[in-house]
């Protein structure tokens, strides 16, 4: 066998280059895929919560449950309202009985009566799916039942979900739950059936105080977009890198 030094080096060099080229370098993108990858969709649904405006009436939770056929008397809900009361002794008192479905009508928190003069801070905080840009719940779905639509909403395919519950564990915000009737993972859809007809979500409509708003981040004239772009807004658990798209005005560090 004869192999010159020159030939050996040449072959070794080309071989290394060829081996280091990933297969994807040869993949030809179809135009639709390329289009979507640069984010051409004209809509990106986002949510804005004004914490100060929320009075804890819980009408949003009630409306959501009725609108989306979430079992009314079971402890599952797509959106909920939390109450935060921080007393002068530095203690946090947090509750959300039945997700705040029946509102907050008593100053008693988990059996503890809190006197108004002991309170440092107290407020209500609505929560719902953050429709993350990088949704960890979608990443972990083993069957492709959870996905993100082109306009940014994360949905669950009920015919495809096997109910394994990975996504329920993966969501850092705890917004997913197991639907007792359909036996699949369920979550807030931003009322996809309403927003795609030009309506507002059921919770936004039910909120009498304007604490909840929905908007399109890709429309610069949208009032919600204007607030997000020009005012001090915060998101929940930013450090997780999920890029949540529910923005809060007046968020407090006590909120987890």
């Amino acid at each position: 066998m004869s192999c010159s030094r020159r030939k050996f080096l040449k072959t070794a060099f080309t071989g290394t280059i060829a081996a280091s080229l990933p297969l994807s370098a040869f993949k030809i993108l179809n135009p639709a895929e390329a289009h979507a990858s640069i984010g051409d969709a004209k809509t990106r649904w986002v949510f804005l919560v004004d914490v100060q405006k929320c009075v804890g009436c819980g009408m949003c939770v009630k409306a959501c449950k009725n609108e989306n056929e979430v079992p009314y008397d079971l402890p599952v809900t797509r959106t909920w309202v939390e109450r935060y009361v921080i007393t002068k002794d530095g203690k946090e008192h947090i509750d959300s009985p039945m997700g705040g479905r029946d509102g907050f009508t008593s100053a008693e928190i988990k059996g503890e009566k809190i006197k108004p003069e002991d309170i440092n801070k107290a407020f209500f905080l609505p929560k719902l799916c953050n429709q993350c840009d990088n949704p960890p719940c979608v990443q972990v779905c083993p069957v492709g039942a959870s996905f993100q639509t082109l306009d940014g909403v994360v949905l669950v395919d009920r015919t495809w979900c096997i109910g394994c519950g990975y996504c329920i564990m993966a969501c850092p915000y705890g917004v997913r739950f197991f639907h007792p009737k359909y036996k699949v993972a369920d979550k807030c859809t931003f009322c996809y059936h309403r927003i795609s007809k030009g309506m507002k979500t059921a919770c936004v409509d039910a909120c009498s105080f304007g604490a909840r708003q929905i908007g399109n981040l890709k429309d610069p004239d949208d009032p919600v977009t204007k607030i997000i772009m020009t005012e001090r807004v915060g998101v929940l658990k930013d450090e997780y890198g999920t890029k949540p798209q529910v923005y809060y005005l007046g968020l407090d560090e006590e909120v987890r």
Partner: protein
Amino acid sequence: MKNHAWRPFAVAIVAIALLLLARAKMVPADFGVHGKSFTYNFYRKSDVQDWRNFKVKYKGRKYCQECHSENYDSIMASPHQIIQCENCHGPAIDHPDNPETLTIDTSRGLCLRCHASLPYSLSDRADLPAIDPDTHNPGQDCVECHNPHNPSLEDM
């Protein structure tokens, strides 16, 4: 090839072929990457339409106004104008066909959602007209004295 080697090989080939056939039959044609990446956009495309077709239950106050304009006008003249009809009257769905009548929630609990006194400084709740449910006619329905469409007792 000898027979004893060929037989399991053939069985394996058939099994793989059956598997591929079943897969092609069971996976919907529109299942694939629709969007920016396999990680977030690998799904059955028609499911988006399925979710769009979900039934709307809350129709909004303009729908109510079409027939009940006098009630609409009365609430719009009161401080309760910020409240949607369906918050108290229940979702309209296909009313008046189905359901023919709506069940109005006239309970004390419904009013207390906003009007039970909670002096929380960081919430607009503190600014709402409020009562202490334990001392303000306990057990009685608010609607016995207050008209929700014109709630101020002075104006009645």
